[in-house]
């Protein structure tokens, strides 16, 4: 099936078999390997991307459903790939990652959350991240990163 969508700000048109998952399209066809696959039961969140600004598990969505949507992956988080998005910077500053495998999904999930939560509590962050598994960090520094990242995303925007 022919579909077209905006991928990290660029118009993209592809012909995909209808059963292709969004994550397969991104990783295998389009070479965007920043989005990871950590499970086969929609549990781990390593595959989270944004579709029209909302975080979505790309292993759970068919590629064809992205037709006409705006998709952002971790590669699109920093507009130029050099200056980090505030959430990326926060993960780096707060040691919010170790092996880095869960990190793209964590950050994509966190940026969606932080967009509407400029000053989240620790409990709110922990609750939101329930669908993202990290085996390395024990989550403590991820929570810290998300709180710092949320604050940085909203810096200068308060009335």
């Amino acid at each position, binding site marked *: 099936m022919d579909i077209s969508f905006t991928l990290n700000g660029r118009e993209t048109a592809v012909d995909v078999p209808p059963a292709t998952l969004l994550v397969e399209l991104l*990783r295998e066809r389009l*070479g*965007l*390997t*920043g*989005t*990871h*696959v*950590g*499970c*086969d*039961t929609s*549990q*781990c969140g*390593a595959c989270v991307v944004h579709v029209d600004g909302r975080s979505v598990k790309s292993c759970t969505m068919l590629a064809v459903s992205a037709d006409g949507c705006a998709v952002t*992956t*971790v*590669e699109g*988080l*920093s507009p130029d*790939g050099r200056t*980090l998005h505030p959430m*990326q910077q926060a*993960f*780096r*500053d707060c*040691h919010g*990652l*170790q*092996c*880095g*495998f*869960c*990190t*793209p999904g964590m*950050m994509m999930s966190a940026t969606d959350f932080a967009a509407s939560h400029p000053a989240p509590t*620790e409990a709110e*962050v*922990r*609750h939101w*991240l*329930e669908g*993202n*598994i*990290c*085996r*390395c*960090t*024990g*989550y*403590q*520094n*991820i*929570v810290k990163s998300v709180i710092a990242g949320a604050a940085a995303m909203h810096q200068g925007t308060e009335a």
Partner: protein
Amino acid sequence: MAEVVGIGAAPRRKEDFRFVTGRGNYVADIVRPGMAFGAFLRSVHAHAEIGAVDTAAAAAMPGVRAVFTGADMAADGVGGLPVGWGIVGRDGLPMKEPPHPALAVGKVRYVGDAVAFVVADTLEAARAAAEAIVVDYRPLPAVVDMAAALTPGSPLVFDDVPGNLCCDWELGDAIAVDKAFAKAAHVARLKLVNNRLIGNPMEPRAAIGEYNAGTGQYTLWTTSQFPHVVRLLMGEFVLHIPQHRLRVVAPDVGGGFGVKQFHYAEEAVVTWAAGKLACPVKWVCERSEGFISDAHGRDHVTEAALALDAEGRFLGMKVETLANMGGYLSTFGPNIPTNLYAPLLSGVYTTPAIHCSVKVVFTNTVPVDAYRGAGRPEATFVVERLVDVAAIEMGIDKAEIRRRNMIPAEAYPYQTPVLVEYDSGNPRACLDRVVELADVAGFPARREASAKAGKYRGLGFSTYVEACGLAPSRLAGQLGARGGLYESATVRVHPTGQVTVLIGTHNHGQGHETTFAQIVSDKLGVPFDQVDIVFGDTDKVQFGMGTYGSRSLVVGGAALSKASDKVILKARKIAAHLLEAAEQDVVFENGKASVAGTDRAKTFAEIAGAAYVPHNYPLETLEPGLEEQAYYDPVNFTYPGGAHVAEVEIDPETGVVTLAAYTAVDDVGTVINPMIVEGQIHGGIIQGVGQALFEHGVYDPDSGQLLSGSFMDYCMPRADDLPKMTTTTQSTQCAHTPMGVKGCGECGTIGSPAAVINAVVDALAPLGVKHVDMPASPGRIWHLMRNAGLAQAAE
């Protein structure tokens, strides 16, 4: 950072930029020209004879390039997977070591045992063809429980291993222990289970094999913690490829925790298949496939007893353990519940007599091997649970009984009755500190507040010591290691003064690229951003034993430190020539070599330049170039230790245990990067909490099916299950490593299960509960509380 960043600083990690921008390079991300895709057909039976395997229909499916079976590999002379340690039983006989073919031959021995491998143009085609293979299984009765496996008449996993007993092993002085028990005023006894765990690093395993028919060179990309060891084991024993024709690359690896420190069948199969088909072959494990093919961890059943005098002093300890090996011996399997377990039963205590016997048992389950902590969490759990049982039974305060029996700081070095000599430590200081930090004094008030809210609250201690920094090769050899356990590092100084380090350890989350760069920056005075660390490629790095057992900084860091010292030595010689001074008058510090007492100096970059452009250079006595290599073999294990306190709250309505607080004080020796150490401890604690509260690899006793085979059934710790931890270090210096480091990767996992379970038992003590097996899941707690309530009502 364009400046020197030394030991004790916490720079942002070098590796993070690629990870946060999605530019990590994991095996699953790699695409090779002309690559084909592989899928395994795995046994659905726990135990069955393999009759005919009909691959014709599968081989004829579109896009299928080949279907391979165990018979094909055997016919090609492929060997079995080797075991890296051989243990010897109490009868003086070596362990039973049955063959472990990469693809099953004759029988399948667990659900997940690989039977055939399909290579096709696409993954879909490979998977579809794997399903089209017809295997004539003749199912046999299976045994998954260790006690049952040892019972006469049990099904035999291997026909020539009677009683399924791989080895009956022991350590310690049984006679001394009997004497201690004979004079005891009190004996505390406990039967406990150390639950089977599935390590589940977030990146599933993956492997790509490639063969270059032009050069005869094989390459394997694999999710491994030790590429050089995979090259050695697979090349020499399995595929018979000479070492110089085999390259193994472990690029970015998404967590290991031990799961990726074995040589796996899949690595050999993809490499062999790539050679047969002359095309790269890629296999990526699915999570559900990983549950039944990644080596599992723990799985002990133990009976233990502690003899005490009337004052609560420990006189002797007796431990009998059954340890599950699963359906084959994995790379380090037999070493974990023996050499890495029994020597830690002394803990931080002065127990004078200890005896431990371990029956190492085959069952129809996934092979069991090291998982973060590997033997040491199991030992700590036995010791610290026993100590609590004794304290409760004797009416002694739980911190006090520990203090009374602790090795005093001045008694180090301390020889235990179970083989090891602790070089350094101060367990009392750790315990006192954690008591203060966890506000143990305020606990009664918190318990009362919980009670008012209808909840049970408990507090649990655990202390621990571990043996890590694996390992002194000679001692390891005496204990059965079949390889060395040193580490190597090369410090390559470029003509312009920047430095590339080639090191044999493997970074898969531990922050080596940062920590090791700090060591070099500190020693050579080179700016931190001018040092890069290369690892994980046997064609780049000289040799290495890899990363496991909290060894990277201890052994690898020591090699790096030694190699840096050699660079300094040569730099001083070069500088002496350039400065026309005597070598002994030249001092090297802060990145400069200067003549003592003068302002005449050469920078490190100037010296490097002279070494590579040797126009003015002592060529008669010194080789050009500035690159040094060191191998380091430690003289002893290192012994990190610490004291942890867990506080839990239990909801009697649901049985849910909430970890309310966790406090850890760890002695890890010198801290190079406190941010990274803290992260390691956090992650370790939560893996231990996972074992204590959530995680459980469960087999159906009749069918031998793994019942907890996905993230829906196997409960991984998640962010909302956990509190904010308080962690700190309270270190003594290691007496024998160059920088005084001890290692920190496993501390948390070793200390936490006992602390959490001691807290759970403490919470339920008013109901008469004396022990809770792991995981303390809601269902288990709810039943325990209900039964305890019924029992109390009946009294």
